């Protein structure tokens, strides 16, 4: 398989996944898109091994490695921040003891559990952040290691 065919295949899989995602939302079955997503990744992985003219040398491997590492370093901090707030909601922190001295004092209400729709928005934001971080870092390191350098040849 040549490189361009592989990229075309990725595009087709991405479009198919988008359609499946839409359908999953319509029928309200997240498992459908989840399985499809894993299958899509497996197909891309298997197809990539068949590409003959895609040279991955140590420089491109270094670009990928650096971009992935930096993405992870930034992402886990942001992810932890959101996770801590979510865990706090589960544990209902702070749950201060009720004021027993003044019977008529207003009770401190426990925090509301984060609605599932809100969790979805947060997850969507995190997903987009991860993609943007990776693409951004990839551009940065590709530029740093001379990906778009030109010569007089």
């Amino acid at each position, binding site marked *: 398989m040549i490189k361009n065919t592989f990229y075309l295949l990725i595009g087709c899989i991405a479009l198919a996944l988008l359609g499946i995602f839409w359908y999953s939302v319509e029928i309200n079955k997240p498992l459908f898109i989840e399985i499809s997503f894993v299958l899509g990744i497996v197909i891309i992985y298997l197809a990539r091994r068949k590409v003959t003219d895609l040279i991955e040398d140590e420089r*491109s491997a270094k670009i990928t490695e650096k971009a992935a590492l930096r993405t992870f370093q930034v992402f886990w901090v942001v992810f932890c921040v959101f996770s801590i707030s979510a865990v706090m909601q589960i544990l209902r922190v702070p749950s201060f003891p009720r004021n027993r001295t003044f019977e008529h004092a207003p009770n401190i209400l426990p925090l509301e559990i984060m609605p599932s729709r809100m969790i979805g928005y947060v997850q969507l934001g995190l997903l987009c952040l991860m993609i943007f971080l990776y693409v951004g870092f990839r551009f940065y390191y590709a530029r740093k*290691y*001379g*990906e778009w350098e030109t010569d007089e*040849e």
Partner: protein
Amino acid sequence: MHDMTQEDLAQAIGVTRQTILAIEKGKYVPSLGLAFRISRYFNVNIEEVFTYEEESRMIEID
């Protein structure tokens, strides 16, 4: 040797042309293995192809 292109060298040592170009421009420092492959391809010692500068830490290819 003088009419050799970057593409020829890249294919011979199994890297992309961009990698050769990046090494030439000092944007990328090759691994020891790649440096040896390049020098062996030209049948010269590694010091004849690459120089190490302590201050700027730049490696140049002749």
